[in-house]
């Protein structure tokens, strides 16, 4: 089965609003969590990542929230802009392993 799931295939947010992208995982052993961004016809690039020893990490307009008991992590993008329009892929892995598992992706559209 899919170990990392993004239940929303798409999301539309007004410019200036907060975009919230969600990811659920199954494996209790996962302790590394990341968000990648993908523009059409481009390859994914890393946006932000966290280890399980923190519940939250901020980087500019981006914040990752980690809920270990709920096996859930999310990406919040404040002051969303049209250039944030892209597919966002969550990923998770076990710290002792090189293996990284991706979710299905959520297409974010920021409308002006």
């Amino acid at each position: 089965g899919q170990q990392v799931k993004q239940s929303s295939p798409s999301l539309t947010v007004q410019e200036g609003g907060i975009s919230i992208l969600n990811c659920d995982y199954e494996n209790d052993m996962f302790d590394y969590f990341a968000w990648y961004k993908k523009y059409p016809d481009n390859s994914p690039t890393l946006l932000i990542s966290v280890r399980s020893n923190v519940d939250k990490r901020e980087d500019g307009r981006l914040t990752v929230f980690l809920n270990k008991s709920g096996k859930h992590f999310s990406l919040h993008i404040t002051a969303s802009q049209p250039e944030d329009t892209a597919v966002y892929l969550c990923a998770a892995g076990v710290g002792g392993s090189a293996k990284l598992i991706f979710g299905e992706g959520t297409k974010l559209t920021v409308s002006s």
Partner: protein
Amino acid sequence: GGIITQTPKFLIGQEGQKLTLKCQQNFNHDTMYWYRQDSGKGLRLIYYSITENDLQKGDLSEGYDASREKKSSFSLTVTSAQKNEMAVFLCASSLTGGARDQNTLYFGAGTRLSVL
């Protein structure tokens, strides 16, 4: 900086054909990956390799072979192409291992496969 080069960019094959996709990186990264991207299914891990001559199966390894004969290259073989199959295959590399050391995965531009 470095670059990941995938060849070919486009691959058209016949049903039942064995097809090989190649990937080269000049980052001097230890770990390399092959992912398959299908619409609505995200990236699914086919094979990865943590060092030269190492191979580790991902969740989608059935129907594929891989080879890591040099640190800089990682090839993927579709053992028998399926009729009407269409997908993008992405190669990636990271310094030691994505989750292990929080290393960024760097992706190539992809190989787009179509099977007639």
